[in-house]
């Protein structure tokens, strides 16, 4: 038993990682992902058929997938430039929401009084449509990228706050007592127990907010416009719509989706790396 679970520690492996043999082969991967692949193929196929039949000659209503990709390629310089603008705003907005959300979550987790006085405001921020307070943000900060970043951060803020807070107040009671019996101080208890115990929950929040940071940036760009620079994908979408260039519109939307997906995928992967050794959510199906 001992030998199967843990090979001789001649070369100390970094903390019980999944052995290489457990990596699924290409065949296994195909078996696992073919339903998802099939769904994508069906969707794109249906889209192409619809565009060629019902919407034939009406590409201003529904351009086919091939046309969208072709158009995207033709305007690739614009797509890349605007995607970069959106990316930078989304990254800064995401970072601000992470720092702010986690900071407020920690304060609220520390003191019931703070929780009672701060949490309602967080909920108010969450339920008030940001688009409605965008004019206020613009009045305060002007038609510039700062306003875009603030809108992005405001939208991404709540899931991080909520999940971090939930994680920090859900520490197992016995574990807390274990530390208490050892007379461990506040900081060490936070660092060695409450923060690591909250990580799965924090990651759940980070994943939701990754997409929201991109969405929020696009929204900000809708409201604020070019903000002096070339303008992000949100600006391009509005402009394509204004001239009814639907294939371009679709190309920019596609780029936005890809950007959001990439964001989400990177955060998910980093979260998985952090959790894969110990958390049930990141458990690999290993055939025994």
């Amino acid at each position, binding site marked *: 038993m*001992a030998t199967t679970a843990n090979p001789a*520690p001649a070369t100390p*492996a970094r*903390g*019980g990682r999944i052995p290489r043999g457990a990596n699924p082969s290409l065949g296994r991967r195909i078996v696992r992902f073919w339903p998802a692949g099939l769904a994508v193929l069906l969707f794109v196929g249906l889209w192409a058929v619809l565009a060629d039949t019902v919407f034939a000659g009406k590409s201003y209503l529904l351009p086919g997938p091939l046309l969208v990709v072709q158009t995207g390629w033709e305007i690739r310089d614009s797509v890349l430039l605007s995607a970069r603008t959106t990316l930078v705003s989304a990254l800064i907005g995401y970072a601000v929401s992470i720092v702010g959300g986690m900071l407020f979550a920690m304060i609220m987790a520390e003191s019931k009084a703070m929780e009672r006085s701060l949490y309602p405001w967080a909920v108010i921020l969450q339920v008030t449509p940001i688009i409605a307070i965008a004019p206020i943000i613009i009045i305060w900060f002007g038609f510039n990228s700062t306003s875009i970043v603030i809108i992005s951060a405001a939208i991404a803020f709540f899931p991080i706050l909520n999940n971090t807070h939930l994680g920090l107040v859900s520490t197992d009671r*016995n574990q807390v007592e274990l530390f*208490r*019996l050892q007379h461990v101080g506040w900081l060490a208890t936070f660092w*060695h127990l409450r923060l690591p115990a909250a990580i799965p929950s924090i990651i759940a929040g980070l994943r939701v907010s990754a997409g929201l940071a991109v969405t929020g940036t696009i929204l900000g760009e809708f409201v604020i416009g070019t903000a002096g620079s070339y303008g992000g994908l949100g600006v391009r979408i509005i402009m394509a719509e204004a001239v009814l260039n639907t294939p371009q519109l679709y190309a920019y939307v596609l780029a936005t989706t890809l950007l959001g997906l990439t964001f989400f995928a990177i955060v998910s992967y980093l979260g998985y790396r952090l959790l894969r050794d110990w958390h049930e959510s990141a*458990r690999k199906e290993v055939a025994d």
Partner: protein
Amino acid sequence: MEETAAIASGLVADDPSSGDREAPVIVAVDHVNKIYSDGTHALKDVSLAVRDKEIVAVIGPSGCGKSTLLRAIAGLTSPTDGVCRVADGVQPAFVFQQPTLLPWRTAERNAELLLRLSGVPRAESRRRAHEAMTLVNLAGFEKAYPRALSGGMRMRLSLARSLAMKPDLFLLDEPFSALDEITRKTLNDELARIWFHQPFTAILVTHNLYEAIFLASRVVVMSARPGRIQTEIAVTLPYPRNSDVRLTSEYVSFVEQLSIELERAAA
């Protein structure tokens, strides 16, 4: 040690059946009452003295306050009145019903956790953690994460974490109650073996009479609502105890005796 005895002696009410009357008192519980804010009378006038290297089992129907008693001794809850005192310089280790491992730490890093938290240097912590893991038959699983361990192995690791501290006093709160009967017996055997090689004082809260008789030198029977000490049985089975003890007629008669007392306590 003199200090210990002096502090505790004033608190000891009576100690009728302890094996070694000369050994210093490690835990003194003196006329303790515990009434929770909802009015539950969890402990009523409970007095108990536990001497050095004794294993005292506390057994009783559920709701008899046995866990409350242990938590009061550990300082996790304070008595409404009366005193729970642990002798000066005695380092207690609490073992929970659940293994209470930190799932993000490997087995060895769990085993060394309490040492690290109390400031023992890394290398020494690691060495003592490995020693303790060997003691509970977990050598070879140092790099495994808790989720990869079986229920019995997790409980062993939980014991190893406490053993690594080399505590003078073990407070065991139904540590094997979540395990299957076979694993429980194995761990009982191991605990008896470890105690024989590296004796410690222990208070074992349990609702399993076989376990109580097998491990303890004294069994305290509590009755419920309000929880108070009904009677006490001195288990005079010889040490070292191993699984063969369970086959002796003495063991069986102790189990019978305890069973009768328990029924009376529940009535």
